[in-house]
């Protein structure tokens, strides 16, 4: 496989992936920290290097509506946003997923106001977990490049036909510079199957045009949603298969639905999503060198949620700690809740403790991870109910 290895910004790696997949329509509205992705794409467009149309729009609601319409006509489409912009798209994203359109978009993770902050956490994409999109979280810049390419294959698979949101931590992944392996355009385009083969088209010139936006009575509405749930079940296998095929074709693999790292004999496992899993990976190696039996469970696919795979990976552990980078206000950590649900009915389920970390950009480095491992080690089935939810490095002076 032809390739170039070049130091580039994470955003440029993503822009290259999108360019190679030859989208037909891109419509995006800038918001930090997504801006560089769409700016590089507009540079490509200005230089005549981008296939299809690049359209400047007046808001994220416009951007999402634009690509919804484009995708409905059978165009391979792309958009990206963060934080407030993602939330502004909310009702359109429900529409895109419900209409079973294979849009690919990037959710560049940034916290949600108030207070105003452009720093990263998962609050934005976590809020959108219910809309019906497939949500894949990437650990590194290389994985961001690789996963966007896989995303088109997953979304456009006729057994799936669900839009894919590739979630990547703002700044940490979008604005860092690393050597990235970029594969030849022709090979990437071949991997995504060449031009899109739409399942159906809202196109008056098509032989069997369809229309969207129908009404459903109470006898059919739940059934409609049931079919979306079924599509997510199909997506589980497709996500795994496409990841393996990408490994065979390009030699890169960063997990399918999950990546269980050194979990087989682990006493304590930390669960996480996104760039923090890279940090946990380093900490696991360092702690293992000291003789600690620890492991990492990286969740790559948050939707569809791989409950069975999580239960299998955690089966032998005594304690599972979950790093939650978002808060369901009034409840607590959502990832923690979903992991607990995956484990609660298992025989000999491990004790699960939720660690609220990295909110609003609060640093989660190896030292912090090691502190979390040390805390998790002291958790037992007997004392778990006494444990408060742990807000990692909470600044008490601001709350007391």
């Amino acid at each position: 496989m032809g390739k170039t290895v070049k130091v580039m910004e994470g955003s440029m790696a993503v822009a290259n992936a999108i360019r190679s997949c030859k989208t037909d329509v891109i419509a995006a509205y800038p918001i930090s920290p997504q801006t560089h992705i769409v700016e590089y794409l507009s540079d490509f467009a200005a230089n005549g290097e981008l296939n299809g149309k690049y359209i400047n729009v007046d808001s994220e609601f416009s951007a999402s509506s634009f690509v919804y319409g484009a995708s409905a006509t059978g165009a391979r489409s792309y958009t990206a946003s963060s934080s407030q912009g993602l939330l502004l798209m909310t009702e359109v994203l429900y529409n895109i997923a419900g209409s079973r359109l294979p849009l690919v978009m990037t959710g560049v993770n940034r916290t949600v106001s108030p207070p105003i902050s452009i720093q990263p956490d998962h609050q934005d994409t976590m809020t959108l977990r219910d809309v019906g999109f497939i949500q894949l979280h990437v650990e590194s810049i290389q994985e961001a490049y690789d996963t966007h390419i896989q995303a088109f294959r997953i979304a456009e698979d006729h057994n799936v036909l669900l839009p894919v949101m590739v979630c990547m931590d703002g700044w940490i992944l979008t604005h860092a510079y690393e050597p990235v392996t970029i594969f030849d355009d022709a090979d990437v385009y071949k991997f995504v199957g060449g031009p899109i083969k739409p399942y159906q088209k809202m196109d008056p010139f098509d032989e069997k045009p369809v229309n969207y936006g129908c009404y459903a009575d109470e006898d059919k509405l739940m059934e409609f949603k049931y079919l979306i749930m079924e599509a997510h079940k199909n997506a589980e296998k497709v996500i795994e298969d496409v990841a393996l095929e990408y490994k065979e074709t390009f030699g890169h693999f960063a997990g399918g639905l999950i990546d269980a790292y050194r979990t087989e004999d682990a006493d304590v496992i930390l669960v996480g999503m996104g760039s923090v899993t890279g940090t946990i990976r380093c900490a696991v190696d360092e702690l293992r060198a000291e003789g600690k039996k620890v492991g990492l469970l990286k969740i790559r696919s948050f939707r569809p949620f791989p409950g069975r795979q999580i239960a299998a990976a955690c089966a032998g552990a005594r304690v599972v700690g979950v790093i939650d980078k978002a808060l369901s206000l009034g409840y607590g950590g959502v990832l923690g809740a979903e992991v607990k649900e995956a484990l609660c009915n298992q025989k000999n389920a491990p004790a699960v403790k939720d660690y609220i970390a990295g909110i609003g950009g609060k640093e989660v480095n190896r030292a912090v991870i090691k502190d979390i491992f040390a805390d998790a080690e002291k958790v037992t089935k007997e004392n778990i109910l006494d444990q408060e939810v742990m807000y990692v490095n909470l600044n008490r002076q601001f709350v007391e």
Partner: protein
Amino acid sequence: MKLSVGGTCFAGGSKANNTGVWRQTAPVVDLAKCVKCKICVDYCPDCAIAVDEEGCKIDMFYCKGCGICSNECPAGAIRMEV
């Protein structure tokens, strides 16, 4: 019969939808007053009005009786009747 993927329906399906049965009041056109300005054509939310050489002709298969045409007609040529 399994639901369609994405809840799509065949294109052009709206043509068969007899929205005229929703009417509670109906427009009645006095062609003698009609000046063929086509303002009613522009305002009709259902595109149910055409103007020919005789004047304003409303398609009662679709007309929902909203009354906007009557409201907007500058010649007062349209009256809403129960």
